[in-house]
């Protein structure tokens, strides 16, 4: 049973990414959307929370915020809206950390 974890807030604004990344199990996927994408920037402090996790990030949200893909933490997978749907389909449950 796998779960897709959604985080849509900046890790520098609240603790949602911290909660999601620490509760998720191996086999789960973390998808960063909207302001959540700031967590995927390699040089930022928050990216340490992604280590050892399977992480995807919304490409259109990155572009809107001026984050180029070469700034992302290693192993982070960039998806588009179709990729978002695929992740929802592929995992048994979706948990939105609002």
């Amino acid at each position, binding site marked *: 049973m796998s779960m897709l974890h959604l985080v849509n807030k900046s890790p520098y*604004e609240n603790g949602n990414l911290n909660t999601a990344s620490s509760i998720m199990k191996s086999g789960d996927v973390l998808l960063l959307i909207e302001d959540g994408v700031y967590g995927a920037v390699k040089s930022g402090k928050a990216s340490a929370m992604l280590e050892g996790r399977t992480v995807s990030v919304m*490409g259109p949200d990155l572009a809107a915020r001026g984050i180029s893909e070469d700034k992302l933490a290693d192993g982070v997978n960039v998806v588009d809206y179709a990729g978002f749907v695929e992740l929802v389909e592929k995992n048994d449950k979706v948990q939105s950390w609002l």
Partner: protein
Amino acid sequence: MAEATKKFMYINRKAPYGTIYAWEALEVVLIGAAFEQDVSVAFMDDGVYQLAKGQDTTGIGMKNFSPTYAALGDFEITKIYVEKESLEERGLTLDDLQHLVWEDEDEDWAEKDSIRLVSRAELGDVLADQDVLFNF
């Protein structure tokens, strides 16, 4: 002079697209500029993301208002404070931000930098020196 000029500071602490605060702040700053006050704008915490260069919102169906920051100089808003600690925590440097300038009419329209990189302590001193603070 009818009324004394006041020192107005607009404090931006939120990322640009997740909420409407950043855009609203920009609107209020531009309106305020019309009243010829001594205006400063500060960017700290997630607010520093507002000035990131290379924003392209075509994929999210929202207006990209980031080019407007470059127009602040034309409205005689020349004091833009960016907090150093906020940049560092987020892994950003000034190079990741737009280069904002203004033209100094007293020096033959010489182009000058608008952004002042300040520490949290220095920003605290700037805040203490203001008459009115607006928070977004």
